[in-house]
């Protein structure tokens, strides 16, 4: 680029430039602190409008109007508020808070304002969506009928999640709530589902670890991480889930399937409580403001399965709630349980017993139910649910041991085996076809002769054998979603062969030990 060219382009720029003098509405900061500002003036400002704060040094910070009072306006500050002082100028922007949406945000880590925080450069997107949007209405929706496969045996079999559903993941700290959600994201590889992980008030180290894991498994190609860190202001935590939801809605409107994870809404409620108390709104139960229910219900209502005229896109929401010492009757847990279409309840006791995922099959439900299951899974899982329910009822008797009748004993054996089969390692989601084969084996009593301790190894052997000898069965389940009679027969033969082999090996080992 020559000097002449530079001068010419500069000249052209200057010629094009027109100074525009227009009337602007300005206010003044009366009071500022803890991420909240009270502003005078701005008599015609709208609720939840963006404000532009200008510090003495000329830096610009954005805020959102939350309170409209008689003589002043209450606003939260999105970002650094330390530089703001009393008397600073505040301008109206006449815009509702919005975030960039579209392909440009996929694969990125952004803050709740849609600014990149992964160091991969600015996000350039033509499309913007308002952060707060009204949820789709009744006639624009259709009922949930497709499964959203999480790749986790116990969920896909017993509490299936449908596309467009809202399923709560609830449990104490350290019970594997996030792990479950991350596994669900990893399992969406190649399924044309866009995933959005919203981290609300999480440790930056945890978010970094999750992003690294998603990158390692290749899941970052279709995932956006929206992170409002624990060190950032409560206002950012408050808008984070709405921002993440808007990013998902864009793809839903384009007819795609979206999975959004809110990790976690208890911290979101705490952030909202902080803002509300600072704005001097009256506290209610557990000091949460009166509209904390509405805060969560309007967010989760935005999960939907659109009808076919509108593209048939869906937005599935997996909110996470952290309970204190298993107390699900606290304010926020009960609220969110009542909003969602079911919950996955994780228990500390189970977790330390080695049942991982530590899912309590008694307390977990999915109100959408088997409408969102593939036919093959429906066929094999129906029996499983019954057996597990009976097992739970009888489990207490097992403590007394000896004098049980054969039927009860068999029931207990079956239950123990099913529980063992439903265990699954972290970051190892399974295909539906493999899940169907192992669950078929367990639910139909084919594994009753295999010792419980050998089941994990047996499962691996079954998968290897299926891949070698029953590839067509696996493929047909994946493709048609059904388990035909022929396939069922073939699957049964493979399982029986393996069980027989297992018995022989057991027997040989027993003999060896006898000789010694």
């Amino acid at each position, binding site marked *: 680029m020559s000097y002449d060219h530079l001068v010419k382009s500069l000249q052209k720029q200057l010629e094009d430039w027109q100074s525009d003098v227009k*009337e602007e509405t300005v206010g003044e900061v009366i009071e500022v602190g803890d991420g909240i500002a009270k502003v005078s003036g701005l008599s015609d400002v709208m609720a939840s409008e963006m404000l532009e704060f200008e510090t003495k040094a000329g830096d610009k910070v954005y805020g959102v109007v939350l309170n409209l009072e008689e003589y002043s306006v209450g606003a939260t500050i999105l970002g650094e508020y330390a530089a703001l002082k009393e008397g600073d100028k505040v301008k109206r922007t006449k815009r509702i808070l919005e975030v960039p949406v579209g392909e440009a945000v996929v694969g990125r880590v952004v803050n709740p304002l849609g600014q990149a925080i992964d160091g991969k450069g600015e996000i350039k997107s033509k499309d913007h969506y308002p952060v707060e949007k009204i949820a789709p209405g009744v006639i624009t929706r259709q009922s949930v009928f497709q499964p959203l496969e999480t790749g986790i045996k116990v969920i896909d079999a017993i509490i299936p999640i449908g596309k467009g559903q809202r399923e709560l993941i609830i449990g104490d700290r350290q019970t594997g709530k996030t792990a479950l959600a991350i596994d669900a994201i990893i399992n969406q590889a190649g399924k044309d589902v866009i995933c959005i992980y919203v981290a609300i008030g999480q440790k930056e180290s945890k978010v970094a670890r999750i992003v690294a894991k998603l990158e390692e498994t290749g899941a970052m190609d279709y995932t956006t991480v929206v992170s409002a860190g624990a060190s950032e202001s409560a206002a950012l935590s408050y808008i984070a889930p709405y921002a993440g939801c808007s990013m998902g809605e864009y793809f839903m409107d384009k007819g795609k399937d979206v999975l959004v994870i809110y990790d976690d809404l208890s911290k979101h409620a705490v952030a909202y409580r902080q803002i509300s108390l600072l704005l001097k709104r009256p506290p209610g139960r557990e000091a949460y403001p009166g509209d904390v229910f509405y805060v969560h219900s309007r967010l989760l209502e935005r999960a939907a399965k659109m009808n076919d005229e509108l593209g048939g896109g869906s937005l599935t929401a997996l909110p996470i709630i952290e309970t204190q010492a298993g107390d699900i009757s606290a304010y926020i847990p009960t609220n969110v349980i009542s909003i969602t279409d079911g919950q996955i309840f994780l228990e500390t006791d189970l977790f330390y017993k080695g049942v991982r995922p530590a899912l309590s099959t008694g307390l977990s439900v999915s109100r959408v139910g088997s409408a969102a299951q593939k036919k093959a899974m429906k066929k094999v899982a129906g029996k499983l649910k019954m057996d597990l329910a009976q097992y739970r009822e009888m489990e207490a008797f097992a403590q007394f041991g000896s004098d049980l009748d054969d039927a009860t004993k068999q029931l207990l054996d079956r239950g123990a085996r099913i529980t063992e089969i439903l265990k699954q390692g972290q970051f190892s989601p399974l295909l539906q076809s493999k899940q169907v084969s192992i669950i078929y084996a367990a639910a139909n009593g084919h594994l009753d002769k295999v010792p419980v301790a050998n089941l994990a190894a047996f499962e691996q052997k079954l998968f290897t054998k299926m891949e070698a000898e029953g590839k067509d069965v696996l493929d047909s389940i994946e493709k048609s979603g059904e388990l035909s009679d022929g396939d069922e027969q073939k699957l049964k033969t493979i399982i029986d062969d393996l069980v027989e082999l297992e018995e022989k090996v057991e027997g040989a080992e027993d003999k060896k030990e006898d000789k010694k």
Partner: protein
Amino acid sequence: MKKNQVKILAAALYEASQGKKGKELDIVIANFSNYLAEHHLVSMIPGILTELEKLHFTAEGIVAAELTSSEELAQAEIKKIADLVKTNTKQEVVVKTDTDEDLVGGAVVKYNDKIIDMSIRHQLNNLAKQLSN
């Protein structure tokens, strides 16, 4: 509460002095001054005066405009700007002038919670913003 008190006092004085003239007005002012002195509120007088002015302007339907320019303006120029504000607000206008060299050139006029920035500094900032984009 301090700010509120100023407003209340100003409102009280304004109401008490309404429609009073000459001697009557002197009595009102004397009483008010005594009250302030007794309650150690003399330091609030400047605040009360600005409030009083505001009350007067709102009651009479007058807009107070603050005009800041880089250098002293001629009466004709001030008149022009006052007319501009008048057409915008459709109300009578009282202009207060002030100078600020930081504006480089031009002027800024403020009224109610509106601002019209016609200063060179503002335009230079805009230009800088556009060029850096």
